[in-house]
């Protein structure tokens, strides 16, 4: 396989369950060392896509290749080079932390000394070394997630697949996970993750695609997506509830790429928030609070997946 060839390549990749199309003819390519994200609301087809990449779900139609191999014919060979962190923990909770790594390492045909050496290193990496001989059952969600990440690394994978790696974790636990994933990325591991958290995508992904109803709605780096689908800044205005509606109407005359009227706020998508705020004041409107902020992926996401009424 040439060095610049795509590590993962999908063309018209489709997954149907009976009459329901979970993934609808999507195309994407991934290069070695990238951190790639599938972003989307629940039910967008992210997990189905991940399971096809993980070679545990045969595509209904289209092409998919990993390392230039066919997931259906070469599943074991491909999976030997993948690390998988599934959405739901699949740890053996009756066994100890150490035993979970041992059992999983054996699935890859690794010898006991190799597994022992790697487990020690990996448990250190995910800060679980002091729990090595504890049973998994009573561990917290965050610790289990970290163990799952350690387990996914036992075969020294070239690609790490993470399906919603921090869903359900408290903020501290999420930050520990992010920190570890960032280090892996620095070590050259290719990361593929799904998430519905924008901050996670922004922190970790070099490139991402936004999925909605089985299709790819947009793709690019976080910066590119913000540039293409939002304005540099957003002005958020909050008015007295009695004036909210009137003010929102008047604001239509303020030049803005987009205006969103929410129940409690009005959002103006503008190139320059401060000058837009001056324009608002020139109309004689005095908001209770005003906030000028940079556009985020969340703005892009909500626009693309259409959760709000838009102008």
């Amino acid at each position, binding site marked *: 396989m040439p060095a610049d060839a795509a590590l993962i390549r999908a063309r018209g990749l489709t997954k149907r*369950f009976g009459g329901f199309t979970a993934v609808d003819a999507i195309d994407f390519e991934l290069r070695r060392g990238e951190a790639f994200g599938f972003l989307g609301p629940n039910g967008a087809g992210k997990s189905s896509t991940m*399971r096809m990449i*993980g070679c*545990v*779900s*045969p*595509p*209904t*139609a*289209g*092409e*998919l290749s990993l390392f230039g191999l*066919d997931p*259906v*014919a*070469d*599943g*074991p*060979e491909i*999976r*030997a080079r*993948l690390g*998988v962190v*599934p959405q*739901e*923990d*699949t*740890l*053996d*909770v*009756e*066994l100890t932390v150490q*035993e979970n790594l*041992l*059992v*999983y390492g*054996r*699935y*890859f*045909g690794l010898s006991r000394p190799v597994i022992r050496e790697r487990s020690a290193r990996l448990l250190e990496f995910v800060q679980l070394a002091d729990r090595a001989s504890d049973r998994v059952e009573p561990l917290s969600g965050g610790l289990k997630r970290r163990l799952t990440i350690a387990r996914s690394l036992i*075969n020294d994978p070239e690609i790490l697949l993470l399906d919603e790696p921090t869903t359900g974790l408290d903020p501290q636990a999420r930050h520990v996970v992010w920190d570890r994933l960032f280090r892996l990325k620095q070590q050259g591991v290719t990361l593929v993750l799904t998430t519905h958290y924008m901050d996670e995508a922004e922190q970790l992904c070099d490139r991402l695609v936004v999925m909605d109803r089985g299709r790819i709605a947009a793709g690019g780096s976080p910066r590119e997506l913000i540039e293409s689908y939002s304005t540099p800044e957003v002005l958020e205005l909050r008015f007295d509830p009695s004036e909210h509606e009137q003010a929102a109407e008047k604001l239509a005359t303020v030049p803005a790429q987009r205006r969103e009227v929410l129940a409690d706020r009005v959002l103006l998508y503008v190139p320059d928030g401060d000058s837009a705020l001056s324009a608002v004041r020139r109309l004689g409107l005095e908001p209770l609070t005003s906030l000028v902020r940079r556009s985020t992926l969340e703005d892009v996401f909500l626009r693309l997946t259409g959760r709000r009424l838009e102008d």
Partner: protein
Amino acid sequence: MAVRLAPGPAGLRPGPLATWSFAVRQLRFWLTDYRRTWRGSVISTVLNPLLYLGAMGLGLGTLVDQHGTARLGGVSYLVFLAPGLLAASAMSTGVEESTYPVYGSVKWNKTYQAAVSAPLRPADLFHGHLLFVTLKLTMSCSVFLAVSALFGAIQSPEAIAALPVAVLTGLAFAAPIEAWTVTRTKDTSLTVVYRFGLIPLFLFSGTFFPITQLPGWIQPIAYITPLWHGVALCRGLSLGTATWTGVLLHAGYLVLVLAAGIWAGNRTYGRRLYV
């Protein structure tokens, strides 16, 4: 271009050697798992034959023997019962191993899902578990035979051949039931196996009395059940009355059921775990 669908165990690149080694990897998982529970399991393996042969063989047997044993083939009830119980206990182990442990691996712990995201394929998990069940059956049936010998319930050196037959009987239940269990989405369906399968078979397959004691119309049903074949063959070997035709007929039937179970499981495992 449409890709191939529903990958079965055939057509995958790893050859027979890899297939074998993948199954052994899964066997080692079960052995690690067994290390948690082996003490309890060993105790019941020894206690079961002691209790059954003591209560039924000696206790009930004394009463039975007083009424003449012609219909038992002229041997004492204990001698009649022991090989039947051997086969029945193998069935019971086969059923136990192929229900909740398999169901739990898919639905509770999801260790099966974990294993297929590693290189193992669904069929490897199936074969690995059958290897584990084979080991467990060999262990429990050996103990059963040894205890039977201690009770003086064994008449022929051929009885040693009852060991593989009992193991085969257990597997003839384990493979098809496992093939079915893996498709289940509610654990309540498993109780059906016990209620309508295990218990009636246990009672009416010639373990405790010859099936010639049953009404004529019910006897053909007994011939279909693998347990009757296991019981008949174990008994023949234990009493030293087995014929080559009988051996081939009974063992052949059990092998057939086992093969059908493996064929089915190779498919159902794939369908359940590759979705």
